[in-house]
């Protein structure tokens, strides 16, 4: 057997591709579902926390900073294990996909809060003053004048961060969430062949490459747009 056929036999065996395509596809659906759920809840929560910080209530801001720092410093896998193994032992049963969704949402919220807050701070003080001088209240100024500018500034870093954190859906395999990696490793050990794993890797590339390229485009688009 020559090198090439040995290579294709190990990583691209046609009958295995056919056999495992459905399970990898179902894993892809699970991955996409959890990723989208994480993006929606994580970004919403992050924006909410950043808005709470604009109220400048020192106790609240302090608590937010501490919690956000902790979620930025802890490895997500550690959090996943604590929640997944800890909660059932105190009588709270959470399905594994929900564990993954909750943990990753909090992690994304922590990073997003930091980014949104930086965005809000970077809007010049004159924008607040101009809006307030026309009689707009605090919340009106925030929603109509400050946030639209702040969010625009934060599109590139938020995209990159959301991508990095949704890739962590692969951690779900450790707690048995039937996402792509889980399906791929199960397939690999059943088949005794690396083809399912290669399929899994390719599924991730197909899923995330467009996002990576979109992120690149957004970065050049938004980088020097408006002074």
């Amino acid at each position, binding site marked *: 057997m020559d090198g090439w056929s040995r290579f294709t036999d190990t990583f691209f065996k046609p009958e295995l591709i056919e056999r495992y395509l459905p399970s990898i596809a179902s894993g892809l659906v699970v991955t996409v579902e959890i990723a989208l759920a994480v993006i929606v809840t994580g970004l919403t929560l992050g924006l909410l926390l950043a808005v709470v910080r604009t109220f400048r209530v020192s106790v609240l801001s302090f608590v937010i900073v501490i919690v956000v720092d902790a979620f930025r410093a802890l*490895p997500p*896998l550690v959090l996943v294990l604590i929640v997944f*193994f800890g909660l059932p032992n105190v009588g709270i049963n959470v399905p594994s996909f929900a564990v993954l969704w909750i943990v990753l949402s909090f992690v994304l919220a922590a990073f997003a809060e930091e980014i949104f807050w*930086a965005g809000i701070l970077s809007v010049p003080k004159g924008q607040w003053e101009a809006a307030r001088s026309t009689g707009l209240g605090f919340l009106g100024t925030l929603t109509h004048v400050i946030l639209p500018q702040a969010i625009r500034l934060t599109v590139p870093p938020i995209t990159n961060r959301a991508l990095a954190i949704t*890739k962590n859906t692969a951690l779900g395999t450790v707690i048995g969430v039937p996402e792509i990696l889980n399906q791929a490793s199960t397939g690999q050990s059943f088949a005794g062949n690396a083809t399912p794993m290669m399929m*899994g890797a390719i599924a991730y590339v197909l899923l995330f490459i467009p996002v990576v390229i979109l992120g690149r485009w957004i970065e050049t688009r938004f980088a020097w747009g408006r002074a």
Partner: protein
Amino acid sequence: MDALLQQFFNFEIMAKVLPLLLGGLKQTLIICVIVVPLGLVGGLLLALLLRAPFRAVRWGAIATIDLFRAIPPLVLLIFVYSGLPFAGLRISPLTAVSVAFFLNSSSYYAEIYRAGIDSIGRGQWDAARSTGLPMFDTLTFVILPQAIRNVLPDLISNTVEVIKLTSIASVVALPELLYSADMARSITYNTSPVVLAASIYLIMLWPIVRLVSRLERRIAS
């Protein structure tokens, strides 16, 4: 409430498993000492390839960076560790971790260096080249020092990410901090060891996270 404390903050268990976890911490630090420099150097090389005079090289570098940014690091690690043996390449967990991290974190570091190099205006290149400095010296002595300074917070914060990421080495049975903690958890039927591991990560990384926030604010202002 008491059950909650017993489950997550059982100090007796924590004290008992601490030596095991410190052994794991040592492994984690060893991994860091290997993979952080690998990533920093690999990233710089990739970033320089992005400025290569040949289009094919530049496109190759972009494709490499984007490919490894699209694949979750855990997938890469499991692929390297459990996939390659099927092709006859049997490697140790530490080698697998080093290879996977090299590919993954180089791509992230490369993007940061690139942003740094891009942030240096044409004028600096022109000035250095006009004094007769060759390309390579211009890069080494004029551009990179400024570029790295500009993106220092990002470099540090990516290093935090890499250190956090070493926790996935537990999945390939490398006895680092999280692996030790999870083993202790399964023996004691108690989550406190993992909480203890979390505290160790916090003690290690919190100061750096704070530092990065500070640096970012200073550069922004």
